[in-house]
């Protein structure tokens, strides 16, 4: 789950008990890293289904299993998909 904290002006990623605060740029970087994980390579690659993601300029590290990756891909996609009514005009 990702929420925005007005007090810290940061996005709070609360994922299975681990809490990480991200600036918007860091959130964008996180999105890019999650989206860059190719599920086919993840399954059939030579690395036993684990992804290691350094975050926030190497201040944090997330170690993810397959289900975590799928869950985070879904969360990220939801956050960045605008509603039907929303436009950039």
């Amino acid at each position, binding site marked *: 789950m990702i929420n925005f904290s007005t007090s810290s002006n940061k996005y709070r990623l609360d994922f299975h008990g681990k809490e990480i605060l991200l600036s918007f740029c860091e959130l964008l970087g996180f999105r890019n890293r999650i989206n860059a994980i190719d599920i086919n390579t993840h399954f059939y690659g030579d690395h036993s289904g684990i992804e290691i993601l350094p975050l926030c300029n190497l201040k944090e590290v997330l170690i993810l299993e397959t289900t975590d990756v799928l869950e985070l891909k879904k969360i990220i996609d939801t956050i960045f998909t605008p509603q039907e009514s929303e436009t*950039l005009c």
Partner: protein
Amino acid sequence: MENLIRENLSINIKVIDLLNEQIKMEARASSMYLAMASWCDQHGYDYSAKLFYDQSEEEREHMLKIFKFINDNGGIAYSPEVPKVSHEYESILDLYKTALQEEISVSESIQNIFLTSRKENDVASELFLQWFINEQLEEEQKMRHAIKVYELHGTDTENLYALDKRMTRS
């Protein structure tokens, strides 16, 4: 949350992803033209070599223009990895034909991003990309012109080098 994303980004996130892919494409094109310039230099096509050195520089400028546009509008531009490019061509005509194919791929990619911007109501990106669409028309014309010249007149070796002098940037 959506409004917060919008507050930080002036352009659409899908368009940013596509622009980052375009950065890779421009970098690849720049590298490919550098290889072509080298081939032309090795084979004595001095004017074509000059054209491709300039062309390589131009593709890098395109890449930087997109790079800056992403960063200026709240996104993150990623410095691209450049894949291996070919240094082998059968002839000067083969080289220009390969260059034209590259330009066509770049044009199609730009047009695809333009259409995505339109679909996502990202007017700023659409306007930004209009310059690239016009630029691509010029690039394609340049390569097509070279191919026509070589196809029409380039049969013997002496003629090939004489034609090379016509390959200056318009």
